[in-house]
């Protein structure tokens, strides 16, 4: 059931790309990849208070030989643009957004960020992916656990928004190599982009909304691109307002 606009971009080399590759393969299946457990956000305040955890966004340059090289400039631009775009978006849907300071996270906050990416990958492979857990019976009941409520109390927030994203951009050398390889009949990865976002209820730890960042949805390194990604990514996010 390959949709024509879906593009899988091959298998990048290197073990650190493993998860990204799995993710890219999952995305390429192009089934609807989001889950919404609640229709409206609840709060004791006027607006639901959402805490944006530092977006775990990384950009890499995929060098000619397939070695990913972390890129500071792109990563920083993407993190800043994304955070700004989410802030604007939150205002437009009537949510009170708070930003967690990346340089001043507590140990628990760092741990939950790691836990979110672990749970996110589990959702990808065991809910959307080819390895459903029989005992779940198709239910979506993933949770980071109620221990996270302490973070909600610390920040006076009702929900936490977590984002995980990895982007591997092919260098000129990599593309040239891929063209040569294609001429010789071999497929070579020319990069990939993939990620997911979750909204966590900070009273229970439950994942109340989950969405996959689809490949080709936008360019985070540019302001307009980031805004487009955010619009697509959060299209179905529950809000406290009536559906637009």
């Amino acid at each position: 059931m390959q949709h024509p606009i879906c593009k899988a971009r091959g298998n990048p080399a290197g073990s650190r790309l493993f998860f990204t590759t799995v993710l890219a393969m999952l995305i390429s299946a192009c089934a609807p990849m989001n889950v919404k457990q609640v229709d409206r956000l609840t709060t004791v305040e006027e607006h639901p208070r959402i805490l944006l955890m530092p977006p775990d966004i990384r950009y890499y340059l995929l060098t000619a030989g397939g070695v990913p090289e972390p890129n500071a400039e792109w990563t920083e631009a993407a993190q800043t643009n994304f955070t700004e775009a989410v802030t604007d978006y939150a205002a437009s849907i009537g949510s009170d957004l708070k930003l967690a300071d990346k340089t001043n996270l507590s140990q628990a906050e760092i741990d939950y960020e790691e836990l979110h990416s672990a749970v996110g990958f589990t959702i990808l492979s065991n809910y959307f992916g080819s390895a459903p857990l029989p005992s779940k019976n198709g239910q979506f009941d993933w949770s980071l656990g109620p221990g996270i409520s302490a973070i909600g109390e610390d920040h006076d927030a009702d929900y936490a928004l977590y984002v995980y994203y990895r982007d591997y951009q092919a260098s000129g050398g990599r593309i040239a190599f891929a063209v040569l390889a294609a001429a010789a009949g071999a497929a070579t990865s020319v990069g990939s982009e993939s990620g997911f976002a979750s909204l966590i209820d900070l009273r229970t730890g439950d994942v109340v909304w989950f969405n996959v960042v689809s490949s080709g949805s936008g360019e985070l390194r540019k302001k307009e691109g980031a805004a487009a990604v955010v619009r697509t990514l959060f299209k179905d996010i529950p809000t406290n307002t009536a559906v637009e």
Partner: protein
Amino acid sequence: MNFRAFVYFAAAALAGMSAPAYSEDIHDVDHKIPPGYKPEESRDEKGLWMEIEEYELALNKSALLVRDPEINNYLQSVVCRVAGDYCSDVRVYLVRNPGFNASMTATGMMQVWTGLLVRASSTDELAAVIGHEIAHYTRLHTLERLRKLKSMAARGSIFDLGVAILTGYSTPIGQASAMLNVLAFNREQESEADFLGARLVAEAGYDPHAAYRVWEKIIAEEKAAIDKRPEPGIFSKTHPDAGVRAAELKAWVSDKWGPPDQEETADEALVTVMNNHYLFLMEDMIDTNRFGRTEELLKRHAAMGVNPSLVRYFYGEMFRQRGADGDTELAMAAYRHSIEGGAAPPEAYKNLGYLYLKTDNPASAQESFRDYLARNPDASDRAMIEFYLEEGPQ
């Protein structure tokens, strides 16, 4: 020869052909960066620093970090003395892990595992490992490894593509050869850091002979081990063999600085730190259940002059957990010795109590349990111990 063996053979041959000869005398290399170094305007270096700085933020909050000021001051003072002008460029973190390791990053973030502290017989040996790590930093080893990896992987891919075009067969020979080349480069960096590290240590007034003694002790520990470390295969040999490192360093150090002093002298600074923190340092080692290695370290600590009462307690723990024939008696004797020495932790009384129960001596067990609760009134297992006390001697 099967296909896999053929690829290995071809890759090794290719790697051998393109392996560079040492460009300068590996014994005599100098720092590549000045004190106060910040990354250049190069893309890969800035990317590398960004990743490491994010990691460091997380490490700062890690539950595994040892935060005790005394032990950190001791470590920091050794680092600064060895690093000299680079002192303010190096940030050292002591991490709870019973393995033998220390590591350095491109940004000067250094990690020392507690397993290194329990293996050092002297501050000189600790300084030798720290000198090796600082040499990695001042020689830009992490960055150069990334650059080597990039260029070798590109060459390897192109080689494989060429073979595929010419023969129609797709093989990973070029990529495998690139890996071997990167590993050889890695081992060369290790040797470089060994020699420059020894020089830094000597210039700081530490004993350069400690540089190879560290490796001799690792070999001794390996001999004492019941489960040996497996030999790495050719695709995972990131470091030179310990025996080779020890021999090369010994020859070079003795040639440059003369033969070692006859006896290693007692090291008050290290022994004081060990005495004050021995319980948590050795607790992690005991938990590895590696009895041969643990016993070797305990022997070493006793010889160094670590408080025998503390060392005896861990002999007790080691025998009790090993549980071989006769170990119960050995453990009980060790706990009793520890208690006589006056520095036994409350757990020595408790565990002795359990062994009394096991050997049908409930009266002595009761006494030990009472001693335990008297010394540790807030014990988390108080209810359990009181249960034994209420049961009384049968």
